[in-house]
């Protein structure tokens, strides 16, 4: 009796496509997109706007006052001829496992919230479609590698940019804001030990059984019971153990560094357990006063942030490599925008969205390359501009997801994963 009355089904059945074809896409044109080998993604989020000029795209030395330029000295890297900031020492040594995308750009430079949304969704907000974040798209497309873990985990604050949008809450994330507390909903209250939990589930089972007996044909009741059993399995000891970093050797834990590093270590463990997409946020303003949003005095201690990133990122890449996971794990350093080469009146930097850098590592990509370039000043793109859809298309292709594939909103509106995103082909050859 039940018939799904959606337009997609109707189309399949009637092939009446001329009138109803969606927006164009590469896939439509039959052009093949590269298909990468990565199976999971660790997305490191430098909230606030990481200054490319002080990190991965340095230029001549500036003085923190009138003379624009990099705030630090530069050093050579494992990619011959490529220089980065002196505070990325460990990363310099492993840069051959990485790809620098030095020509990212978009038009949303004023507001952090709007730019964060744009970099996570590759779209501007719309009043007709609420777009999903890249994490939700990956979760939706690939699911988790094993049943008993969630596909998408965020270490940071829940917000609209990370949300599943039209894909619906089931493609949302489990999040934690502090390693100490673990994710809300997965960690039992501290006064509930395993024995008490078992007693609780025993009682619950009694009511469930009686309820299901009273409503033997009630599919909703039975489905509800199933879901809750699946939930308890996720919160079981196996997955919870993943959050316990003391299982790792102390030397390794130490080499990851501070809070952000420990989050990166947890990210590796989560991916190992079957999670597909882990976003790790790094915007701790206790380190330098402002986090990556280095206006004014925030610039002064920015090197401490960069050093912490360096330690965590380089260790993560080598740790993945050691676990033979690097080829199958795409590591990304992303941020909402970069910062201009010039300084503000108190020695900090403003926002710059027309040219900034993203970093990719591992994921089976042809690494050791620098894609795109900025001009001499570091304020404009000189070579191979990459839009946000291009950036997303590259990450999706690395994960074997066709960036032109159409997703459908609940009212069956076709929405391609990216709008005309072109992956960086050179990374897949």
């Amino acid at each position, binding site marked *: 009796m039940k018939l799904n009355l959606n337009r997609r089904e109707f189309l399949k059945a009637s092939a009446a496509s001329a009138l109803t074809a969606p927006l164009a896409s590469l896939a439509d044109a039959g052009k093949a997109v590269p298909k990468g080998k990565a199976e999971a993604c660790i997305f490191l989020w430098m909230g606030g706007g990481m200054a490319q000029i002080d990190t991965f795209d340095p230029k001549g030395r500036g003085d923190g006052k009138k003379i624009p330029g990099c705030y630090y000295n530069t050093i050579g890297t494992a990619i011959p001829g490529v220089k980065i900031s002196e505070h990325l020492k460990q990363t310099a040594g492993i840069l051959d496992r990485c790809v620098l995308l030095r020509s990212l750009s978009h038009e949303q430079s004023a507001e952090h919230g709007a730019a964060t949304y744009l970099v996570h969704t590759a779209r501007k907000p719309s009043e007709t479609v609420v777009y999903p974040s890249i994490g939700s798209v990956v979760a939706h497309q690939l699911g988790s590698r094993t049943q008993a873990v969630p596909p998408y985990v965020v270490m940071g604050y*829940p917000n609209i940019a990370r949300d599943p949008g039209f894909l619906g809450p089931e493609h949302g994330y489990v999040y934690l804001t*502090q390693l100490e507390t673990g994710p809300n909903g997965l960690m039992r209250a501290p006064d509930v030990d395993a024995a008490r939990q078992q007693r609780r589930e025993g009682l619950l089972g009694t009511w469930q059984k009686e*309820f299901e007996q009273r409503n033997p044909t009630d599919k909703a009741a039975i489905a509800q019971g199933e879901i809750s059993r699946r939930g308890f399995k996720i919160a079981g000891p196996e997955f919870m153990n993943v959050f316990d970093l003391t299982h790792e050797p102390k030397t390794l834990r130490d080499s990851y560094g501070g809070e952000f590093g420990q989050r990166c270590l947890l990210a590796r463990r989560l991916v190992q357990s079957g999670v597909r997409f882990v976003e790790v946020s790094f915007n701790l303003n206790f380190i330098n006063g402002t986090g990556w949003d280095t206006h004014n005095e925030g610039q002064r201690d920015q090197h401490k942030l960069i050093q912490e990133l360096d330690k965590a990122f380089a260790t993560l890449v080598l740790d993945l490599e050691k676990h033979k996971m690097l080829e199958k794990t795409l590591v990304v350093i992303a941020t909402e925008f970069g910062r201009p080469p010039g300084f503000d009146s108190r020695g900090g930097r403003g926002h710059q969205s027309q040219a900034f850098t993203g970093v990719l590592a591992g994921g089976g990509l042809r690494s050791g390359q620098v894609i795109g370039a900025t001009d001499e000043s570091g304020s404009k793109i000189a070579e191979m501009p990459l839009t946000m859809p291009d950036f997303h298309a590259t990450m999706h292709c690395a994960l074997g997801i066709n960036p032109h594939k159409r997703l459908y909103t609940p009212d069956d509106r076709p929405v391609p994963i990216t709008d005309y995103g072109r992956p960086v082909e050179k990374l897949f050859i």
Partner: protein
Amino acid sequence: MACLSALISLLTPLAAAAEWQIAGAAKTNLTDKPLAGDTTPALSARFTNAGNRALRRAFTKTTSFDPAKPHRIEWRWRFDGKPGDFGNSFNDRINFFSADQPQGGSNASSAWLIGIAAASEPDREVHEGKWFFFDRQDDGDFKKENMVSTGLSLVPGAVYSFSVTVDPAAGVYSASISDGLKSFSETGLRFRNDRKGSHPVLHFGGSASNAGDDHSFSLGEIRITQLAGDAAIAAKPAREAKLPKPASANQKETAPQLANGPVLVQLFEDLPKGAELDLENVHAITEYRESATAFTRLPMKYSANALPLDRSSPFVLLARTEIVRPAGEYKLRLRAKGAARLFVGDQLVLTTKPQKAASDGHEDVPELLKPDVVDLHIAHYSHQEATATVKLDGSPRTVTLVALIGGKGLTPTPGELSVAIGKPGEMPRLLGTPDAPLLDEASWEYFANVQAERHRLADAHRRREVSDSVIGAWERYHAQVRERTRSLPPIALPSAVAGLPESNAIDRFINTRIAAGKTKPTALTEDLEFLRRLTLDTIGLVPTPDEIRSFLAEPSATRRTRAIERLLAHPGWADHWVSYWQDVLAENPGIVKADLNNSGPFRWWLHQSFSDGLPFDRIVTELVQMEGSLVQGAPAAFRMASLNDAPMAAKADVLAQAFLGEKLSCARCHDAPDHPHKQSDTFSLAAMLEGKPLKLPSSSTVSVVEGFRKPKITITLKPGQSLDPHWPFEQHAKLTQLAALVPISATAPATRSQAARLFVTLDNGRFAKVVSNRVWKRYFGGGLVEPAEDWNNALVSHPGLIEWLAREFIVSSYDLKALSRLIFSSYAYQRRPVDTSWADTRAEDRLFTGPARRRLSAEQLVDSLFLIAGKEFGSEELNTSPAGNRPLETFLNLGVPRRAWEFTATMNERDRPSLAKPAAQSIVDVLTTYGWRQSRQNPTTTRADAPSPMQTLLLANGVVGTRIARLSDDSAFTELALKTQPVEALVSETFLRVLNRPPSVSETKSATEYLKSSHAIRIVADAVKQVKRVRPDDRIGWANHLSTAANYIRMEEERRLRMGDEPTKRLRPEFRERYEDFLWSLLNASEFVLIP
């Protein structure tokens, strides 16, 4: 009157471009196109300097023209720059003026002066963003008092016509401005420089805050005409200083709640800036009484149709009371956020300073103050406290408080404005009668709650009173509607079906199709199943044990009908409808610098409309007209769409889906591929809402990208094309005589009001049906028409029934309660649920053999959880500027939520612990996991709320689940457990509270067994109830979000929340934990989240 043709040609840019001078740096060129209405090409200018900018040239005396004699100057002008570059700065200005010497920009030597300034700056208040005519009053300063506002704004692309008639000998001019749609003129304006005589140098320019600001403009032909000598313009008498209008009788607060009390309160608005308050000569806008001199909430200001309005900011509160105290020394204590003064008799005894507006985030977290008297309530840190010791002699004294509330860049709320009095070293009392509340923590909280509740009732009272004539107009309109409807042929009812019971006409339609479908309906619900479903459907909560008992105490024949009546009258009715319309109307306020397609907050207006029981067509009319306050919960907030290139196009789609079942979403950027809508339909309706022609933004189209296939959708509009206001749904409604009787507001743009009428008129064949179908769908889990928001090509499952329901809805004067009552009373609604998703079933199979099985909505779940545990949310205030030193427009204040619909996205895109709201977040986590949307960027009729493991986990292990099951001293279950009763009674009452039914025999047995052994020894005799609650730290906000301390405080709060509420010490842990386990198991049972 001589026409100076020679001069005209000289001044025509084409002929004499070289004679123009440039002040500042600019490129000019002649465009090949004249401005509309001109015949000669226009001169276009683009300046590249910051500061003053001008094109100027002189028109000197010739044989036939004398600039010292009366003349008229006319020109056309268009803004071609970037709208965003004409920003929020006082330094973004445009001006036209004449002077006797060439000037860099306008200054005190200007004679006549017309212009526009984007924003005020401290001490220079202007008519922000409105074209002004300068009119010297007391001096030549550039300020509001010396300007006449034309009410017209700067519209890029619009061609403005200006005309200035100058009487040089009198130093007076007349001026007019028109943008083709609106015009404004004023005569008798005085020269800025107060100098009579010739001012032959014309200036066209302005100033820019940044060198790069694109304020390009085109200047058309300038006509200068000598006027006859007798064309003198009489200067008008100096305008009166803008004083508040005299209070009329109805401005006195007549709400009974505010009619009595020892403190007389008066509010004054629009006071002249900078002047000493001369309260003898101004009149209060509102006058009422309070029980004590403390103000946590003030009366809301309402428009004639009861929409919330903003008061002038600042406004002044004056409170006066007479005190009699035994002779002696007393300490007076004044607390205020901003400037206030306290007088005893005529003597000024206390003052506080004005509050400063702020904008960065680098402040420190202020120290917590220590009270100077034990237990004294400490005001929020944003307050100043001033104290003085006074001697009273036992005779009555008048005490007067004058306080300035709000101001530029400040939140216009009183905070904790208060005056207290007491003997030095003793707990003071609020100033009022000798038994006024003490200023200790508990009494203050109680006082504030009572005051809020009193004002809530008084506001409701006043809403009815101020809108008396509007209510009357709607009643007259509805009388006509009823008369017209009664004259229609009645809708034929199908005959009764043998064997299928019926309660009202609805059942005839339903039963007939069930019988025809050769299937059987489900059985009637049990009484308690019915009560749970009905209570959830009416007020969004589960029934309480007391409600269950009084329901069961009624005779069984009438208990269901009585329950329906009781619940329809419950205040929760409004709460439950607000969440629905928030989804459908995409209410999406943002509390941190809203920039993600955010609307303003119109939630409180929705709530007040349902609380006040307004006819639904009036609610929709007011929504469409979008008037009232932008930030305090009025329909004006619906107007807003941040970061959206065409807000009114978005609103056109929302309204058409909501009330006409016409989905314009697919016709937003192109013609709809599978709907009959063209993009021009969306933008014509949008232009109606805008009140004027609307241009298609280039971002509202689909571009063809090289290397990709050409899109197959059709695009018939070109970017930049202008669309006139036009109603695109003639098939549903035309502007008939009856439609023209729909009461509208006089102040909304004409075409917007016209759209409002067309949406709701009886002659709109869709409106009543679409709304009736939405109500049906809400209660049955599927509409008679699906999708409910998109009726194109949709089949109707019960065509007669939708007609019948719509007709009943109309004759009830569009009363949602009447419609709901019909549905709740039907036998069809009262049947047990079926396992069919009616929304996904095709029309011919949609038989409604029972309502679809539904699960609790996110809001029902959260509200019910906290109701049954008897706990408060404990949420932070949804606001990022607790000090109130930022404008509401940047940091909205959505208050402390009391029901789930009041939450909003916590908006921590910045990932800073200091910007988190941990308690609110813990509830938002549950809400979002169950399908509530923290960001409602688009309208939604059917939520995505499929079951997911995270839902289970948040109830089982999450902060909310842990809090609800925790037996703390604020838990209703703790009190229940302490009662002297057999363990079986405790089990039974707990089942009743959570699952709304008594337990079965075997359930009683299992639960009793689990609790029995520890129940007997549960009570700790000497333990006391902990009353003080841990509250979120209210010192943290945008102002100090970069401080390390702020981050650590919030992180600590997150950790504390994870521990759950503090367990009671009155119950022994052995029993407490067991009872918590039992509770936990019921809360996590499938039955709890299912609606019977």
